[in-house]
């Protein structure tokens, strides 16, 4: 898993892949960013990371940190600046795998209510971002045109629909599964 994560990371760092993913807003936001998070998840694997046991015993600290990083990268400004400022680009390649790592470490430890809260929060905030990108007449990013914003907005809206259908499936049909036991 760790080798795969490193290989993945190197591929994402490769100039051709990096530049092509960053040249299109929707690929930057919905492909490069999630893939960098995936690197962290793969890096973590199923190992017990002892150095995390002490301060991330119940998963809350790790998850809060991960959510903090996520909020930062949900701001359009951050995405824009990563293209023009090398410090932010480095921070992106460092922070998002860290986010994935912490997320994987914390997810199983946090309580069900926290998980449900995060899920529902994603629903409302993705809805807000869909609205923002689709509706605002302002060009939000300097590096991407308004029509690219609209595509991102549409993807956010689609994500909301998928999340919503999944939520309805869970609460009306599937139940909480293993968690209930």
């Amino acid at each position, binding site marked *: 898993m760790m080798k795969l994560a490193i290989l993945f990371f190197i591929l994402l760092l490769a100039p051709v892949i990096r530049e092509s993913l960053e040249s299109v807003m929707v690929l930057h936001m919905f492909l490069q960013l999630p893939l960098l998070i995936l690197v962290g998840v793969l890096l973590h694997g199923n190992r017990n990371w002892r150095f995390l046991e002490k301060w991330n015993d119940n998963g809350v600290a790790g998850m809060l940190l991960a959510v903090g990083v996520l909020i930062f990268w949900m701001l359009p400004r951050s995405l824009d600046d990563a293209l023009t400022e090398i410090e932010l680009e480095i921070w992106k390649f460092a922070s998002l795998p860290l986010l994935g790592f912490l997320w994987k470490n914390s997810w199983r430890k946090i309580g069900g*209510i926290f998980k*449900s809260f995060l899920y*529902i929060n994603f629903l409302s905030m993705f809805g*807000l971002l869909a*609205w*923002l990108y689709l509706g*605002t007449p302002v060009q939000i990013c300097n590096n991407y045109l308004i029509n690219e914003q609209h595509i991102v907005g549409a993807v956010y809206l689609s994500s909301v629909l998928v999340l919503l259908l999944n939520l309805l499936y869970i609460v009306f049909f599937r*139940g*909480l599964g293993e968690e*209930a036991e």
Partner: protein
Amino acid sequence: MVHNRLIKNYLVIGGIVILLMMVFGILMLLAQGGGLSLSPPTFYQFMTIHGTGMIGAAALAASAVMWYFLSQHVTLSKRIFKANLILFLIGLVLVIIGVFSFDYASAWTFLYPLPTLSAKAWGIIGALLYLFGMLIIGIGFLLLFIDTGRAIIRKKGSLAKGLGWDVIAGKKAEKDAPEPAIIAGTMVTIVNVTALIAGATVIMMNIIHTINPAFTFDPLLAKNLTYAFGHVFANSIIYMSVIVVYELLAKYTNRSWKANKVFLIAWSMSTIFTLMIYTHHMLMDSVMPKWMLIIGQVFSYANGLPVLIVTAYGTLMIVYKSGIKWDMSSGLAFLSMFGWTVGVVPAIIDATIVVNHVMHNTKWVPGHFHMYMGLGAVVMIFAFMYYLAKVDGGLKITKLDWIAFFSYIVTMAAVSVQFLVSGALSTPRRWATHTPEWMGPALFGGIAGVFLVIATTLFIVHFVRYVCNET
């Protein structure tokens, strides 16, 4: 018996906030009636705190009613219940500071783009304090309803089973139907989680717009989301509180209030309709899609009726020839059903599109929700307070309580009716200043409100006596 200090804290805080908000209501009515001099900005600040505080406090107390009875059937988290109370208080403090220290006065509706574009009546800080306050209160309630939803799913398997859909489909016998507290808890969980998602989205949007007005949003979508949040959340108060009617009357009459198929279908219908009918707030928005306006009218007629009819009918049937001994709690529970029944009538009239175009911006609408909430939902909460004081504290009622009971009925009805009369006189609502022709009912309402506050104070004092005796 499930009881603890937290339930009492919820009810004491809820009750006291309701009482304080009544005082603001009286001051507004007296000002409109010409009996008190109040500057328009102060009036709108009072209107903002009155609306926000009343719904918030009633929802808080109603959630305690629901928690108390639901926790007898499913395992709820006490920590989450506590967290909701703490977040409510933090949010309330932010709202109060925003309104009274920074002059924020948009009414509870915070209708986009008013929080930002106030013609300098208030600034950015006031708007942000109010909006973040509302957001924090919303987070607390969201955690609470996530907990109730998860607990119901753990116990029953799914929310569908919580609403008894398996019984409706004939897969289970009626005798195995969920308890009324679970059915109501499921309904409230579904509608309020939906409402809070809509609310979080529109509040965050307002926050973004307040911080950077260059980001503009579609005002019609903003209004839809605002009412999808506010109307549904306010509506849910009665569905949380009504659990006390089911539980209390069943105990008092020694008869069981079992859910049957009709009862289950009624609750399922109200679950769906409650989510759809906020559109009756949009009937004057000519740019709304026509089909949504038709939904607003048709389903507003249908919304309250299923649960109201089965509950009102059930109330009459369970009491009929039961030999029930009337006391304050059973009396209040019975009264609340009357208040709910008459309180929906003005709403149904207003939900008719042709009537709405004339009546919606008049005081007819406050007439509806004061009757519905004041004689319905809030009375259920008072019934629960007397119930707890009796069954848990053994506290005896006095003649003063009965005097308060009858005074409350008369004065709350007077306050509601003066709004309806004002509406019939075409008095606009949300206006600080009234012409002399509009002043009479407002002044009458303000004076009736003084006696209403005295009656409510006696209710709260009774409950506080119980809480103090216990500690």
